[in-house]
């Protein structure tokens, strides 16, 4: 087993002409796609992997410098595609991993035939004329909790702060899964996510994008998907599902799976 395969718990399932890569969001692992995979394996080859830093990976492989920005994760994705000898794939990314896919597609647009983004956002922190959903004060509480977990963990005490402690329900919704990692990695990942701002590069994207989100996702307001649609350099299409929550593929599979299958199977009409 190659190092890339082993480190990312890489799996290739199913058979078919086209290849789909499923990328989970931070704090979860590839099991978040468990409801979707059975619907895909008959018609597609499905690639599943765990992001470095996910609770299921070896924490020793987490390079804090490499993963200080989302580019580090994009490099991992490209390494996986190269390891598998993929020449073209459909990329389905959840949450921050959707942005990782976008970054990868800017450097290697030939590898991606389309990108399906679920609950994605280019920037979480509000800005002048931009509503990302989070205010600095909300995030301060999160970083305080993560910081105290980190200190406790380093000193041999019990890190006990969890997402459910947060006052802001948006932060709760988004960060609940972030506490599933080792405290030092969790803190680093949280900083990376909330410092990232992908707005400037959206116009460099040339791969068609399917933007999918829940109508009620406290972490990703619906205006964000509209922003993405307006600013992506490639053609894009938005679908807002009646589900709620940031992990709709787990919490409402009946709603989400048909939508995902539709966007995977069919392309944006250019007519």
């Amino acid at each position, binding site marked *: 087993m190659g190092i890339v395969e082993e480190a990312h*718990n890489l*799996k290739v399932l199913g058979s078919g002409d086209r290849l789909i890569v499923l990328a989970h969001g931070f704090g979860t692992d590839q099991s978040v796609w468990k409801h979707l995979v059975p619907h895909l394996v008959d018609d597609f080859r499905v690639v599943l992997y765990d992001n470095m830093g996910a*609770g*299921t990976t070896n*924490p020793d492989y987490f390079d804090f410098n490499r993963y200080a920005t989302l580019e580090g994760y994009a490099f991992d994705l490209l390494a996986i595609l190269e390891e598998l000898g993929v020449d073209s794939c459909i990329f389905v990314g959840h949450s921050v991993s959707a942005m990782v896919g976008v970054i990868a597609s800017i450097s290697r647009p030939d590898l991606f035939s389309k990108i399906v983004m679920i609950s994605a956002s280019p920037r979480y922190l509000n800005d002048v004329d931009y509503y990302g959903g989070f205010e600095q004060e909300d995030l301060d509480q999160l970083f305080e909790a993560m910081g105290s977990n980190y200190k406790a963990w380093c000193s041999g005490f*019990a890190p006990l702060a*969890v*997402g459910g402690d947060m006052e802001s329900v948006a932060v709760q919704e988004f960060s609940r899964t972030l506490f599933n990692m080792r405290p030092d990695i969790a803190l680093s990942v949280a900083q990376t996510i909330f410092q990232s701002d992908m707005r400037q590069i959206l116009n460099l994207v040339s791969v068609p994008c399917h933007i999918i989100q829940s109508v009620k996702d406290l972490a990703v307001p619906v205006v964000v998907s509209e922003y993405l649609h307006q600013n992506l350099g490639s053609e894009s299409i938005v679908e807002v599902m009646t589900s709620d*929550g940031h*992990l709709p593929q787990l919490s409402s599979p009946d709603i989400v799976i048909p939508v995902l299958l539709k966007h995977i199977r069919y392309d944006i009409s250019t007519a």
Partner: protein
Amino acid sequence: MAVTSSDTHFLDIPDVVLTIIFSLVADTRTRNAMSLVCLKWHLLERSTRKSLTLRGNVRDLFLLPTCFRAVTDLDLSLLSPWGHPLLDSFPNPLLLAQFLRHAFPSVVSLTVYVRNPSTLHLLAPQWPDLRHIKLIRWHQRLPTLPLGIEFVALFEHCRMLSSLDVSHFHCWTEDLPPAIQAYPMLAASLSQLNILKHSSVEGFKSHELLAITASCPNLRELLATCIFDHRFVGFVSDETLLALASNCPSLSLLHLVDATSLSNVRPDLNDDGYTSEDASISRSILCDVFAGLPLLEVLVLDVCHNVRDAWPALELLNSKCPRLKSLKLGQFHGICSGVDSRPDGIALCHGLESLSIKNSADLTDNSLEAISLGCPKLSKFEVLGCKKISAKGIRKLTHVLRNTLVDVKISSCKNLNVVSLLQTMEPIRDRIERLHIDCVWKNADNSVKQTASSNGETRLKKKNKSRDNSFCSRTWSKLQHLSLWIAVGDCSGERRPCTGSLGLRYLARYPSLSRMLLDCSGVIGYGLTAPPGYPDLSLWERFFLYGIENLNLNELNYWPAQDMDVNQRSLFLPAAALLAQCGSLRKLFIHGTANEHFMMFLLRIPTLRDVQLREDYYPAPENDMCTEMRAESCRRFEDALKSINRHIPD
């Protein structure tokens, strides 16, 4: 040091006697210590060790010790990674199966996790003299397997089998009858059969039960789940029971348990304690059944549907089944009226040593008194879900039976609360060894804080030599096993537990408390995706486990709370963090999953020797898509646990 006057030394005892002495020692750690004394003791210990549970990672199987050749009872079900197909990961599995045989040539009793039939195809031929086998599988049976193929693989090679236990083995009920019928000689010599399936909620249909028992006329022990609800196909009727008794007249142990009884949910009875449907069992047929089983010593009829006016049949039990020592009845009514304090009904079974009464709607304090007078040998008594009894009745019973009772369990009886219950235990306080009570605090004033809301329950069981008790100044000097059921409130709509905790730190007053079973699997909530207003499992974990580091626990079995939507029972950050603080823990078994990052927290515990994730609930998560702990992660964790850098004090 005083010099003894005699010259004889322990080693002067003749070998034959030493061998007998050694073979009486059962505790594993003691045996391990004995084998370190000198070479002679080492050889003696190895030659008298009859029972062995293999732990370790299956890929290290080539390191298997070959000194345990005397082992007759071998347990392979706990090899790591738990629940994986035993030899599938090897290029030459047959070689390893033969190696197992070489290392353990004398095995006659085997326990093994059978993830798929290949395990049995490889192992069954290695021990053709096998007498007893217990198969375990919590994962689902592959639907593509032909019926009975696993049993056929077993019966084909192990023709001397006399005891089969599939109580924790998930298969279809249709798998067993054809296999049993295909090997009539084996079936005829089968004496113990345990098909009381905990690993799924199916019961055997009536025709399946009869097919099996017809082929096994020499059964002495039969435990089976079945269907007593007459609305279902294959329900147990009068004819079934009669035929069963006539098929297997030599039965000394019979358990017939309705499949719904094993689902671990507290019964949903109407206000009077009766189920909506009656069982189709008439009492006259019961009389005939008892008459047909004269050798009966242990009987469990957990019917879950009303059997009314059962007293005539129960009175006959005494004369028809004179050897009966242990009886459990579920949903039987009219078992003892206790009018005028004269023993009637079940109280006439004066040979009973163990009695368990579940959901008997008309059991009263008078009944309890009659039972205590009529069954003077009772050492174990259980009463569950009986709404009409009160503390007065229990007190009478414990008083009359104060010289014999050592094991009492009282649960779900709504007129009883903890304070009054503990007072009823007064007469047996210094002889009781095992006790279970529900911690229901209503109508009692108490100093323990109220816990807040969720719709769930926890069950806290522990082994304990209790030194002191806050309710009475006398001590519980013989109490070894204490089991508590704690309801964590019942108002819904509350999202978080209150900022207190379950109060585990109060258990720190029992310094010799060393083993605990903490079962939180009754709490249902949401792990990763908590909709607003619904319980978030990581908050609950923190609530349950807070304070656990104050106890001197050696061994902990922990069942995490469940996210039923995604069939996940897992450790989250608070659990991993709090468990890692238990500085004296040697053994930790988590009945669920956990990811690698959290498992690594546990390496902080300096004394930790043995950890395993056991998903022994049905259905066990099927594959990597559902489990956080992948095989590689398991290997890394176990390597780290064993690494020589860790200095283990003892």
